[in-house]
């Protein structure tokens, strides 16, 4: 490109002698897509290094890294579903409410004598039902994803209040609290679950025929349709995935909180959208990555954790997190 024109005569000679590996690297770093994929990893490493340097004995301890992994697990699962929705050029605004609804259904099953895992199936199915309804209406009635999932946001949190009568239900289960506290060695169970789901989603999106259909639908729906892709089915499947994962995440939330509460946790929704954009998924669809948003979730949680450990006052934390989101999004912006 314009590398040679910029460099002076002497350095041009040096470059020629340099087996062109340096210029290759330069070419790569000038490619905007390289940055959209890797900026989040760079930012994550930067956050860890900076906080590690400021508070080496508090931030970079096994104990604290474990905290960051635990805190990231539930958002990471929600983010996978959001990534699928955004990859088809959609968005799922109902994730946090579906999670609340799933938690309430879990609570009802559990307090009626169901075991911790069978209640988990109930919660997951409740989320799946919401997701299928989302996808079905979006696909068949051709209504914007934004409107349908915004409606579902209200409907799901409303039903959560109706079913629970507004009352939190306490969930005391040794297995559940082990799930939240324990781990394989130093890696918490919650993070292992989130990582397995992430790897599975990556495989599904990039190594299966249906995954290709999802990407094609997001890239150019008309072209995809004429190639024989069942767009309606794609839409239904992605929102079902998102709803199911939200319902499943409800169980993990209960394991951490020890209660099924009807109050919606809206920061989960905002975090999921921020992580998807930070991770390098195009909001216009067609270009997705599963690991990008995963790392972005780690980044957001590490940032909150680091600011807390350093003792930055709460108000400034909002500012700094917002700035990181906007700055990184500005850097990953590609035409």
């Amino acid at each position: 490109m314009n590398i040679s024109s910029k460099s002076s005569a002497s350095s041009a000679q040096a470059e020629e002698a340099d087996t062109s590996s340096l210029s290759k690297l330069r070419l790569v770093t000038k490619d905007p897509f390289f940055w959209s994929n890797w900026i989040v990893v760079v930012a994550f490493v930067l956050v860890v290094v900076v906080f590690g340097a400021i508070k080496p004995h508090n931030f970079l301890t096994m104990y604290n890294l474990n905290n960051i992994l635990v805190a990231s697990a539930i958002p990471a699962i929600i983010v996978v579903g959001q990534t699928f929705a955004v990859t088809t050029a959609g968005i799922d605004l109902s994730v946090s409410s579906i999670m609340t609804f799933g938690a309430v259904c879990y609570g009802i099953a559990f307090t009626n004598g169901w075991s911790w895992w069978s209640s988990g199936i109930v919660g997951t199915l409740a989320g799946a039902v919401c997701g299928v309804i989302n996808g079905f209406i979006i696909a068949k009635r051709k209504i914007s994803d934004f409107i349908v999932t915004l409606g579902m946001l209200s409907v799901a949190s409303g039903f959560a209040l109706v079913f629970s009568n507004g009352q939190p239900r306490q969930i005391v289960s040794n297995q559940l609290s082990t799930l939240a506290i324990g781990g394989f060695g130093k890696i918490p169970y919650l993070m292992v679950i989130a990582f397995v789901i992430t790897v599975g989603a990556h495989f599904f999106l990039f190594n299966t025929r249906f995954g290709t259909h999802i990407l094609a639908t997001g890239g150019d729906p008309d072209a995809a349709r004429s190639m024989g892709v069942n767009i309606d089915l794609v839409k239904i499947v992605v929102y079902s995935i998102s709803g199911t994962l939200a319902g499943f995440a409800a169980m993990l939330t209960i394991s951490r909180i020890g209660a099924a509460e009807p109050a919606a946790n809206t920061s989960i929704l905002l975090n999921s959208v921020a992580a998807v954009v930070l991770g390098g998924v195009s909001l216009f669809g067609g270009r997705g990555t599963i690991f990008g948003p995963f790392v972005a979730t780690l980044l957001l949680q590490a940032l909150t954790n680091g600011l807390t450990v350093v003792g930055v006052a709460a108000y400034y934390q909002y500012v700094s997190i917002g700035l990181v989101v906007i700055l990184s999004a500005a850097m990953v912006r590609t035409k």
Partner: protein
Amino acid sequence: MKKNTRFLTLSISVVAAGALVLAGTTPSNAAVKKLTTIRIAAVVKGLDNPYFISVKAGIVDTAKKLGVTANVQAAPGLNDDIGQANKLDALAGQNYDCYIVIPISSNNLSQGLGKVTKAGKPIINIDSPVDPASLKAAGGKITSFAGTDNTAAGKAGGASMIKLIGTGKKIGLIAGLAGNVTSNARIDGFKAGAAGATFVGPVNADWDTTKALDAANQMLVANPDLAGFFAANDQMAQGIAKAVAAAGKKIPVYGVDGIMDNLNLIKAGSVTASVSQYPYVMGKMGVEACVVLAQGGKVPAWTVTPHAVIDSSNVDSALKTGNQLPPAGYNDPYAALIKK
């Protein structure tokens, strides 16, 4: 009986503290941790509510006055239970001498508190109590609780309103989040204090000004004979006051908390009264209890923080002092135990 033994240990420790001061020799004082080396961590509810800003002010001011260090962290939002748990987790592993907590729900901090207790650090719970069952399951232990008796506060409001409007009238009730323990206690207390009145509601307005405005409007339409309103917090009382004014009525509106905004409205006359809680005192007592414990002292397991009905008769003095401390003084069992 229990109270007596507690008083006994308390007075013994006071005497012991006095003896230490009297002895005044360096070796016996060396055992007491220096105030400037004491580090306190606090995790409070969301700082998007003036009530918890006041708690924070109580913590920060008192820490400054005593010369101790305090790191005050808050939940990212009033309902962000997991976000708050993450903050406590982040602080639990560090070498703070003592932790002050206000949980968003009665369960959400229990696992983090278990970690704190396992690290051998004392916990002071202020304002909203942690659920004992879930705390026990997580292996956590609260050393001392300081908070208001919300039922008593509601009761004081009810009695005051009955004095104003007389018995046999209809009163509208606006509650906070459905199922919230604090809201229920305030509403139930109010009903007990206003015995003899009939009640409309309670309707849940989620602690929100706008939602309370809408709820009050609907109540006024359905019940034109309402003689008063009680809201479980001040922000909702502000919404009700707007609805009452818009309907062209002049009926008393009571809130709970005593936030500055509402005191200004009481002075202006649009809100009638607020049963003031003293979040500033809670924050102050939290720090004092922490300091006593860090110095190796003992604290009472339960302290009721004060409340007072603020209306047009005493609003001026409350406004002048920023309503940080109750006009009639209060009992602080912790302050005297601190070794300077």
